[in-house]
């Protein structure tokens, strides 16, 4: 094949190449989605696909799950650095899930394989995916009461899953033996492997078309280009130090608030996210690894000022994150950290998007979403098949209102782009029966643009025993509004025992430390679980909301007539239409009351 030339590529050429790289990542993602066994892959899309250069630097990723960006930037680089490039052979596939080697949390496994051309490594392709069950103290491997990483599942350092194309049986056997649902692990790992093969094949084609020298040079240029684009955008922000803080209700082990405190330093074309004033790491598993805090910082920034710039290792040259080891934003071994990715990351990201950048770019910022993934885990033996099952479900909530529109309703928190588990999947794969799945009226944070609505889901146990765990937050500290918008609503996780008439929280039932974090509660036939996810905060003064939109909200069942009057100063006539005259009077009176 031709070695090609290494002449610089212009912006248009780089743009074309960038989209070719992303296309390859997208195709890898589709392959993974269509071939996986577990709904968390096929429905939840909780994975990323990556192209990396010969040093392991991130070149491109599919826009599937930005929550994995931090891990994507470092985990492969560090595999290459730790094991040495000389130990990669054609057909090798390395795997690891170690949060203490650049992983986000234990369930997310990274696979990486080298791309060889003419006997030399020219690139790597990789993926990161959340395996729904990896052992540990709770089915679903998301133990809200874990106090160290060893309780969170099987931890793998970088090891070969395939050596020169042949499976390394010892590693497979260790993994399959320690996971509760080995058939799913088998299928999902092969989906990841297939995705790598797709990426490898496409990238080899591209190298043959463009030449090694040209494409390798483009890898470097596209990182420089991303760095330059981000510097240009940061330079538009005013220099200064900006502060934000937010807290978790508790860590699941101790009933005490846990604070994240952030100083953002903007100096010309550089930006530093300094988390040094945050609380020490917690005993429970809401700690973030460094790469999770990096993801949160980068995504919060890129969502607001990133536009359509390429996302690759170049952006990490501009953005510096300071999170002292041993803090809630950078857990130190052996701290538990499975919830850092799902609770800590969205919390921090929205501090960046709302509290920090809201001051600087109010037209692009947003109020807080429900801001918890409301992780609901369960496992047991399915009476229909006799097989052990386990699943990791994350729940939809309401997003925050923003300058241009209301917050989205019933969506997974915005850091991850994932999707929750469909009702049909719940009922066909596991012994659950849905009694209710609906939007929650009168819960959205009021505002000129209101928050999105959270959901209410009621599930009835359809087998003798199901073991459930929950890791969530926002039961006490509700999602904040922005620029006069009101708070969203709180999380509730409740249980109604078979034969009982009322729901009570799990905390009330079992005397738990936390209302939203518990592990391994055994439920029986006819018990009902009620998950109420939080709604988003509002953006702007509710009295500035277009009355016609309030009327629509009432008609849709999102807002009651009483709340329309009390929160928005909007009155409807007997025909259900807007009463303009009385609304104007009421709003005038409410404004003068506030004044």
């Amino acid at each position: 094949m031709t070695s090609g030339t290494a002449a610089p590529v212009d912006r248009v050429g780089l743009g074309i190449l960038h989209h070719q790289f992303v296309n390859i990542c997208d195709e890898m993602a589709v392959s993974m989605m269509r071939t996986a066994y577990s709904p968390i892959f096929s429905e939840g899309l909780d994975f990323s696909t990556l192209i990396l250069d010969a040093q392991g630097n991130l070149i491109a990723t599919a826009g599937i799950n930005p929550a994995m960006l931090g891990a994507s930037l470092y985990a492969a680089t560090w595999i290459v650095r730790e094991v040495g490039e000389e130990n990669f052979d054609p057909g090798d596939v390395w795997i690891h899930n170690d949060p203490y080697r650049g992983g986000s949390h234990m369930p997310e496994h990274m696979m990486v394989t080298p791309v060889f051309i003419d006997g030399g490594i020219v690139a790597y392709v990789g993926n990161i995916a959340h395996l729904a069950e990896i052992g540990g103290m709770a089915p679903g491997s998301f133990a809200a009461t874990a106090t160290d990483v060893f309780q969170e599942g099987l931890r793998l350092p970088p090891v070969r899953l395939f050596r020169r194309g042949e499976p390394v049986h010892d590693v497979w056997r260790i993994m399959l033996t320690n996971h509760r649902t080995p058939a799913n692990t088998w299928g999902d790992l092969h989906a990841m492997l297939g995705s790598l093969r797709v990426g490898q094949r496409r990238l080899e084609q591209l190298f043959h078309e463009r030449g090694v020298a040209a494409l390798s040079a483009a890898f470097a240029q596209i990182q420089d280009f991303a760095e330059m684009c981000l510097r240009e955008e940061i330079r538009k922000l005013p220099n200064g130090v900006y502060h934000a803080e937010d807290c978790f209700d508790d860590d699941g082990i101790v009933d005490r608030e846990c604070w994240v405190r952030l100083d953002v330093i903007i100096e010309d074309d550089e930006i530093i996210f300094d988390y040094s004033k945050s609380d020490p790491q917690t005993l429970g598993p809401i700690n973030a690894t460094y790469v999770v805090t990096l993801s949160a910082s980068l995504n919060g920034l890129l969502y607001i000022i990133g536009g359509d710039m390429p996302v690759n290792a170049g952006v990490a040259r501009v953005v510096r994150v300071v999170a002292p080891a041993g803090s809630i934003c950078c857990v130190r071994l052996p701290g538990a950290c499975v919830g850092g990715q799902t609770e800590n990351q969205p919390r921090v990201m929205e501090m960046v998007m709302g509290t920090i950048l809201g001051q600087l770019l109010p037209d692009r910022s947003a109020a807080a979403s429900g801001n918890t993934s409301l992780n609901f885990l369960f496992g047991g033996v399915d009476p229909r098949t006799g097989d052990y099952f386990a699943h990791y479900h994350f729940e939809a909530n309401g997003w925050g209102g923003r300058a241009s529109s209301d917050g989205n309703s019933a969506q997974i928190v915005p850091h991850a782009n994932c999707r929750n588990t469909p009702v049909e999947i719940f009922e066909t794969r596991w012994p659950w029966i849905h009694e209710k799945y609906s939007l929650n009226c009168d819960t959205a944070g009021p505002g000129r643009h209101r928050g999105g609505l959270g959901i209410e889901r009621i599930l009835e146990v359809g087998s003798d025993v199901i073991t459930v765990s929950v890791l969530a937050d926002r039961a006490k500290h509700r999602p904040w509004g922005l620029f006069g918008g009101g708070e969203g609503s709180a999380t509730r996780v409740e249980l109604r025992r078979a034969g009982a008439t009322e729901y009570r929280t799990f905390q009330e039932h079992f005397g738990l430390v936390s209302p939203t974090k518990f592990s391994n509660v055994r439920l029986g036939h006819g018990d009902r679980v009620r998950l109420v996810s939080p709604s988003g905060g509002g953006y702007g003064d509710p009295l500035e909301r277009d009355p016609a939109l309030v009327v629509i909200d009432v008609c849709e069942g999102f807002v009651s007539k009483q709340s329309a009057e009390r929160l928005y100063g909007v009155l409807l006539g007997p025909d259900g239409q807007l009463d303009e005259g009385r609304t104007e009077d009421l709003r005038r009176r409410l404004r003068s009351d506030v004044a």
Partner: protein
Amino acid sequence: MTWRELGKSWHDTTVDYCEVCGNLLIRRYWEFTDESGVIVRACREDDVRLLATLRRYRAEASPAGSGA
């Protein structure tokens, strides 16, 4: 200032952290001496400058909660 190998054996499972930013140290680290003579282990060469910037801002910072 120089890059140094961590020199860990294959069975060593300890974890090392950058003393400037908290990021992990994998296989090697950038060693430098700060203004007070303390030896610092960092993940990047650029952390010399990062540390200086942080110290400058922290010295200038008004009491807790300083905003924009």
